[in-house]
């Protein structure tokens, strides 16, 4: 890697007019030009979550997703390799694969019948003689375009549309601990994300959706109706009453971490409706056989992560959410439940809990969607120009896990998010 003392200005884009250490300009949520630039930077140059290995477990399995503007097919080829192929016939640009998911050896373009293997290779061209002697060259040139880099961690598959850049382990950095924390709850260290994805249309900018996921301040207010009507929060949402951290993990990743409070309580399944372990004997037994009683106990005490992995993946405790930005004010949130292979009883409970909390009719997320929409509506007023994110700034502490704040309502995660945003969006498009 080369080092440059000061990055040369690449164009007219001045990111300091949009992000400062303690604030972000309203236009980052409303400007179509900035949205376009985000697609061309964040989603074109960096690592983006695309799929989970359990979704493409067999050879031939495929699913269709978006990376920013680009439709892609995530496919496990006949050779066993997972590729991220651009979903466009290389001939005249017809969208090649129009199903959400399936299993296929090949994809055939409905327009002129070109056929591509699930490895991306161009397999068949009807009436090939029209290319004359150039055919072999055409065929070798016109395989499907593919994301040049695909890598995974703990089953989570990420792709980068840029050939060059930091490796996935470098990108994830300490956020791998969050994935590990989730996998510690599985006796096989594998999870299954095939319970179907809820697709919830949020009428808000994609950043509103993701930064809210690591906002420790809103629950008491946005979700008051849940606590009033149904049950109190698992632990208090009043920051001074709980030992809960917010953390800027670095590289744009951030989280709300209850593990100190949970370890202090030393009670299993606080994060899972406080179900007694005796109700899930098979699961607890499998976890103890896999990891020993002490480690299993700790995993059941601290529970799953509540972590945002830049830019589009949210480990939402026993759920996984990812976002698909559609327009500056429109975002689809995809949510599914984390299933543990072989643990049917646990999984049914997880599914019912996910339905209760998440998605368009969820007791929690429906209201987050509403608040996001009202945020977008509020931004139509262009004053004040800035959204100030300075809560807890003077009490942030740097430790070996990142920048932490013991006030759960601190905007430390949002500051981390926008520091990364400025570095990426302010870079070369």
């Amino acid at each position, binding site marked *: 890697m080369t080092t440059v003392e000061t990055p040369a200005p690449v164009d007219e884009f001045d990111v300091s007019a949009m992000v400062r250490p303690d604030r972000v300009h309203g236009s980052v949520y409303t400007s179509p030009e900035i949205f376009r630039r985000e697609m061309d930077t964040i989603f074109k140059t960096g690592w983006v979550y695309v799929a989970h290995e359990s979704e493409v477990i067999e050879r031939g399995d495929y699913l269709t997703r978006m990376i920013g503007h680009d439709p892609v097919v995530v496919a496990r080829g006949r050779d066993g390799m997972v590729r991220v192929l651009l979903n466009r016939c290389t001939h005249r640009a017809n969208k090649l694969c129009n199903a959400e998911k399936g299993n296929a050896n090949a994809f055939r373009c409905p327009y002129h019948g070109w056929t591509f293997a699930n490895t991306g290779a161009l397999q068949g061209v009807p009436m090939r003689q029209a290319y004359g002697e150039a055919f072999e060259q055409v065929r070798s040139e016109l395989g499907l375009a593919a994301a040049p880099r695909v890598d995974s961690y703990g089953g989570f598959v990420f792709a980068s549309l840029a050939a060059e850049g930091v490796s996935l382990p470098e990108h994830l950095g300490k956020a791998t601990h969050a994935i590990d924390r989730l996998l510690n709850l599985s006796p096989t260290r594998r999870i299954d994300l095939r319970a179907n994805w809820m697709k919830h249309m949020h009428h808000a900018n994609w950043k509103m959706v993701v930064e809210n996921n690591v906002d420790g301040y809103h629950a008491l207010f946005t979700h008051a*109706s849940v606590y*009033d009507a149904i049950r109190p929060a698992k632990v208090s949402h009043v920051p001074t009453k709980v030992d809960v951290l917010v953390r800027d993990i670095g590289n744009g990743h951030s989280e709300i971490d209850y593990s100190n409070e949970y370890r202090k309580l030393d009670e299993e399944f606080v994060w899972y409706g406080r179900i007694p372990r005796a109700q899930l004997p098979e699961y607890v037994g499998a976890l103890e056989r896999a990891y020993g009683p002490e480690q299993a106990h700790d995993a059941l005490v601290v529970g799953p992560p509540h972590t945002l992995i830049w830019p589009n993946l949210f480990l939402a405790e026993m759920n996984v959410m990812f976002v698909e930005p559609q327009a500056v004010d429109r975002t689809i949130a995809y949510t599914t439940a984390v299933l543990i292979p072989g643990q049917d009883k646990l999984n049914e409970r997880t599914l019912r809990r996910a339905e209760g909390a998440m998605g368009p009719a969820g007791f929690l997320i429906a209201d987050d969607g509403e608040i996001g929409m009202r945020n977008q509506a509020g931004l139509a007023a262009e004053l004040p120009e800035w959204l100030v994110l300075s809560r807890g700034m003077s009490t942030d502490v740097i430790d070996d896990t990142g920048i932490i704040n013991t006030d759960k309502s601190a905007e430390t995660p949002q500051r981390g998010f926008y520091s990364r945003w400025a570095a990426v969006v302010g870079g070369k498009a």
Partner: protein
Amino acid sequence: MSMTVETGIDEARRSAAISAAMRPVPEADILSFLYLESRLADEGRYTEWESLWAEDAVYRVPMHPDDDPRTTLAYINDNRRRIKSRVAQLNTGNRHSQTPPSVMRRVLSNSEVVAITDDTVTVESNFALFEYRVRQRFWAGRVIHTVRRSNDGGLRLVGKVVHLIDAGGPVDTLAFLI
């Protein structure tokens, strides 16, 4: 190509097939009960709506018609207890996604009886729901009601499954009673 000459036997078979494919329309009191359910939901009369439900209630909005709830997620999959919670949350007046509540009117139509047991009748209907909140939206699909008739003649709702025509696509916030 020449027309097939249909014999009397063919005609009789055809008539029998059509009759067999036809389904009875629900009895008047069942239909009244379904209209009541629609009206209470439309008017946000949450507690009255809740009172229609039997104890073994199932209220579902699946993502795909053939989904198995044991292994897949639905948008809504409420048992009686969760129906009570859903109504309690709406009744706080602080469920932001329904504050103010949607103004709604739904049309229930094409109702057909698809199953009958000793004490229940299952009715499938088409529905179109017009909702205004910030802007107007419409929701449409097939709704399957299962109604129990008790010994005293009272009616209770045992099941309501709503198959949205757009369940496979992104769904807007759905915090009202669909």
